[in-house]
């Protein structure tokens, strides 16, 4: 296709400033390193007010550690250790989005340190571990449990030619009613003590 000639060439410094993504294979990781203990200190200062000293979550802020083996339970706890597929995501996300309210304020060394600490909280590395670009692990424990969308084969039953139109069931019974009857925030009847089964994801 013919080029129009709009825009201009991006300069290397510009690309460097915005090209902050890290891939599972580690491409995009900057030079740097950080220890679990340095990460712990940073975490207490910058993160624990929301995520708890040990990543257990304070109030409604997200939990960052634990939940291993809970994925098949009634209430799975999905954390870095129990659920995430790749370590790269931890580095990438912390650097681009955390602390919440001061995004992209962490240096590479700080980000490595915090990543190391979070890995330690999730029993993935020992407490004397020093994380760097060179020894950056790729997979986390749950990586093998991810697979690509297969709805078109697994759920092919949903492609039906003639869905039932009449007498489709013998009986209809109500199996449950709305848990939160009064949702609208404008009157005072909201039952704040009645937590929903799941928040917004």
């Amino acid at each position, binding site marked *: 296709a013919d080029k129009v000639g709009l825009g201009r060439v991006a300069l290397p410094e510009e690309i460097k400033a915005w090209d902050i993504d890290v891939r599972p294979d580690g491409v995009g990781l900057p030079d740097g390193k950080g220890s679990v203990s340095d990460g712990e200190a940073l975490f207490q200062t910058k993160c624990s007010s929301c995520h708890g000293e040990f990543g257990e979550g304070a109030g*409604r802020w997200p939990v960052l550690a634990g939940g291993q083996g809970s994925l098949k339970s009634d209430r*799975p706890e999905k954390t870095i250790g129990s659920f995430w597929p790749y370590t790269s995501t931890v580095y990438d996300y912390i650097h681009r989005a955390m602390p919440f*309210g001061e995004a992209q304020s962490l240096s590479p060394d700080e980000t490595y340190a915090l990543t190391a600490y979070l890995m330690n909280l999730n029993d993935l590395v020992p407490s004397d571990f020093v994380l760097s670009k060179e020894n950056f692990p790729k997979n986390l424990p749950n990586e093998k449990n991810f697979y690509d969308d297969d709805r078109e084969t697994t759920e092919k039953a949903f492609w039906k030619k003639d869905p039932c139109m009449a007498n*489709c069931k013998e009986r209809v019974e109500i199996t*449950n009613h*709305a848990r939160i009857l009064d949702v609208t925030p404008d009157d005072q009847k909201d039952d704040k003590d009645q937590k929903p089964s799941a928040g*917004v994801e």
Partner: protein
Amino acid sequence: GAAALTPALAAAQTPDPLIVEKQEWTQYLGEGVNAKPYGVPSKFEKEVVRREVEWLTASRQSSVSFTPLHALDGIITPNGLCFVRHHGGEAEIDPAKHRFMINGMVDKPLVFTMEDVKRMPGRVNRVYFLECAANSGMEWRGAQLNGCQFTHGMIHNVVYTGVPLKAFLNEAGVSPKGKWVLAEGADASAMTRSIPLEKAMDDCLVAWAMNGEALRPEQGYPLRLVVPGWEGNMWVKWLRRVEVGDQPWAQREETSKYTDLLADGRSRQHTFLMDAKSVVTNPSPQAPLKSKGPNVLSGVAWSGRGTIKRVDVSMDGGRNWRTARIEGPNFPRAMARFYVDFDWNGQELMLQSRAMDDSGYVQPTKDELRKYRGSNSIYHNNGIQTWLVRPDGSAENVEVS
């Protein structure tokens, strides 16, 4: 109560003062033509607003405010009522200061200003729904929130004006090695999602206008990505960068989030497409029936696979169905409006709607979905919704066998 249910064609015994007495608005001049250079709704519509359910999230900046579906009609969502889902609050960006970069596996990495973007040839106007994959997510485990604004309100439907992403990628020159793109936003969450190159080069748009005017700030002003039929989180707001690569980036929003944990402990990833779905918006808990006799059931349907072909409605909890009237424009990967004109005898109803798209897919029941997915997958709940309507006209979110 029953008194509220006025029978049909009640004859008035005495003249209505609202007719026989001259009303103020018929006698005295109202405000001038430019009292509001940018108009706002009537004060009598003040209940028609987005709503946040604050106890659902820890922070107002990473939260959702829902479209008031129960109060809307037609196929267009007004710009000021389009649901909002942020992860770092709303970025407030001066368009003169915004830049759009293409980098990665390209011949020439490029930077565009907003003026450059709007000078690109091949501008298009397309109507598309945007649904968050987490829409109805709170309803997996059972009926929970009592109103379609809350159960189904993470959706909107507008006309986008923009240029195909393909045009920008062609300007940069995509390497044959390229297989994926990463879209990144300029907000405080620097939202990122990986998109297969094929989709990026197909119908993705770089858009700057919605329903004829600039994107609203909470919808990504001045620039957002449009990914027709795919989950809303991919439609990166405050779009600042698209990188071409050869592997997906496995960002936080496509690993920790927006993956679907099934009952066997395994998780589907890359579940991009939003399947056919529908909901009755009126009657619904926020829009009770007020009269016996003629009534209009109204709802919306949509599918990321294509065009809505048919919507069936049941009034008895799924035992018997009738086909609804799809009315107005019905575009691929856009919301369609359906109606059923019915006569209400004042008895209990269990209302459901079931959408079918032109791929042959039929909207499943929640039970059917849970059979495949369990109850913890959070996302992609496109199950049939049931509203119980009581003899007093009130409605409630229920599940039925």
